[in-house]
């Protein structure tokens, strides 16, 4: 009888973990980059390939760095929110067009509106590696000193904007 109870006990322990697991988010990966300076790069801009952009150009401002691509399905979900955010003028958004072709990226922005101050082109994904891009889209909040304050993996949602990103931006802007 006692020995026969072992499978039951093992199962109950496992069920306890599974229950806890329901309230965890496996996609929420803490980024080692949070609290570190945003990795430096210099990339051509999507609209003016002759000009480059570097994160240090934004020193003194709080800004969002959004990784997107025309081939990315989830980017379409967050895009209207970004457009709205850009129109409100609360915080500038710099885009990084990730592993994409320029023509399709431009068409995509023409069709859906362009929320970005500018977009840089990371055609081979090399800068993406520095930023630990895990899946597109991703969004970073970068403070006035150029330090990454927050990283969102996956699309920005109304809830994440309202509860996490915008309050953080306000606080950083006040500093």
């Amino acid at each position, binding site marked *: 009888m006692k020995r026969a109870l072992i*499978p*039951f006990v093992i199962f*109950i322990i496992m069920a306890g973990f599974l229950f806890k697991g*329901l309230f965890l988010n496996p996609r929420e990966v803490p980024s080692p980059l949070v609290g570190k300076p945003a990795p430096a790069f210099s990339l051509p801009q999507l609209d003016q390939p002759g000009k480059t952009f570097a994160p240090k150009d934004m020193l003194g401002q709080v800004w969002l760095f959004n990784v997107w691509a025309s081939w990315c399905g989830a980017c*379409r979900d967050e895009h209207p929110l970004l457009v709205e955010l850009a129109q409100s003028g609360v915080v500038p958004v710099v885009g990084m067009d990730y592993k994409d072709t320029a023509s399709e990226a431009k068409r995509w922005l023409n069709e859906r509106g362009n929320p970005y101050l500018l977009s840089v082109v990371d055609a081979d994904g090399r800068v993406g590696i520095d930023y630990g891009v895990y899946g597109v889209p991703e969004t970073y909040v970068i403070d006035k000193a150029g330090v990454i304050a927050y990283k969102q993996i996956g699309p920005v949602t109304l809830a994440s904007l309202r509860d996490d990103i915008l309050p953080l931006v306000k606080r950083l802007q006040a500093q």
Partner: protein
Amino acid sequence: MIPEIGHFSLILALLVALTLGSFPIIGAARGNTVWMGLAKPLSALQFALVAFSFLCLAYAFASKDYSVVYVANNSNSQLPLPFRIAAVWGGHEGSLLLWALILSVWTVAVSLFSKHIPDAMRARILGVMGLISVGFLLFMLMVSNPFERLMPAALDGRDLNPLLQDPGMIFHPPMLYMGYVGFSVAFAFSIAALLGGQLDAAWARWSRPWTIMAWVFLTVGIMAGSNWAYYELGWGGWWFWDAVENASFMPWLVGTALIHSLAVTEKRGSFKAWTVLLAICAFSLSLLGTFLVRSGVLTSVHAFATDPRRGVFILAFLVVVIGGSLLLFAWRASTVGRGGKFDVVSRESFLLANNVLLAVAALSVLLGTLYPLFLDALNFGKISVGPPYFDAVFAPLMAPAVFLMGVGPIARWKDAALPELVVRLRWALGISAITAIALPLLLGNLTPMIGLGLFLAFWVFASTAELVYQRLHKAEGGWLAGIAASSRSWWGMVIAHLGIAVFVLGVTVVKGYESEIAVKMHPGDVAHLAGYDFRFDGVESRNGPNYSASHGQIQVSKNGVLRTVLEPEKRLYTVTNMPMSEAGISPHLIHDLYASLGEPLDGGAWSVRIYHKPMVEWIWFGCLMMAFGGLLAMADKRYRLTKQAKAASVSQG
């Protein structure tokens, strides 16, 4: 209107399932034959209602009824009809309906083919299956209704996930579910045995064909999924140790242990409690697989949208079904008895060792799958467990199991002599050891893993050949008479074991000798791999029903002779705006040549990946052999109804 009828039919099915899950079981406890007799008609009625509901949903898909949320989310007017039908199980709600449908199919099948089973036991078996059905129907009606309406209706659907728009989608999920749900029969048999306190050789003989059939479906389902991943994901992999793949593999491992343990229970009356525990575990792992996919506790390519209410519901259901049956096991296991004694060196021992290895392998896969969750729940941080863990743990467990496959069938029941075994297997051992070293030296890449894999594959070939030779050699009346005299279940075992050898050989060779290149190719460029020349002839635009494609052509030649043309394709599905690559594959017994298009680059050039995959097809062919062996075993005379009605509880095996 039709979706509402389907919904209503599902509600009626729930009521029927509740009746099926209560009256026959109570009737069996009280000896009320009328209540027990309800089981059969109720099973048929439940099947009719669920099937009707399923047809209603299929009709909504076929007729493009985008006023149904589920249809609007998972199909599109441009989607071809076969995929619109397959889209019925392309999302969460519909795949649950498929689950319930298949459960009702198994239930009605058991009710039809169980004339020889005592009334009380049959009533309990069908009742238990009815209770499982209650859980799934409730789940659907409460939190996952596939018939929910969308007001106002959508103009067009959001389209089926392009990954799923493939013939594989039509076969893989139903096959897999037939396997998963099929283990509910073995589960119900075990619960019925625990409830009734009766577990004998006859019980094992009744449950064997059902268990083998479920196992056959699961084998084919996993094989189809692996094959699908191979050509659809575009990088030539065939198994990823993805959480959901593991979820299908664990019941397979335990199910494999179960069919062997059942064999012992049938022939020797041993392993009774162990058999019951394995049957409970096989189905529990199937349910756990459903939980892992539906609840979103693990990330996976298979995961559907997550809803915490659903997760809580399935977990509660799991606790009731698995926890309840394990408690019942703890309480009643002593009543079914443990069976006859056997020597340390005997076929029973070898089968037991094999069983334990398979069960431990399943446990280690379970541990690897859930380990990230455990750590996260204990706030030890996030980790992911990948193929290195599984490769490192799985191979050492499976190697002795495969080795024992060669010894077990040759050893005598009850007590065998070790020296005699060694003598009988010395040729097999010699041949496989020599091949394992000579072949890699010949091919030019000897690593311990290749040597081990080849040794095991040839060991199973040679020891099985030895087994067949001895059986036929001794047979009276020559070889042909010997073939006919051996039972189909024996031949089924031989073929399934050879299937394992073919599988191991395929895995070993493809892992040891595959090669690949990733190149940038302009039209007219030639790439070289494994002695072949691949000439890229550029791409042309083609349009499919719901996608636009860049269709590439790659001419493959060897020494200037044209061998084949590969036609990889890069598709863009217009509704979801998702790119998909369709690999161009030339399958062959000796090797596959495989090309997939990457990204278009400047000046008409493309990035192209080319793979040379020696003997990769053997992997799936081996699985088909295992499944065929299972079918043959099921067709054994002693499982036939007419024979069974007369059969006494003593086995003739």
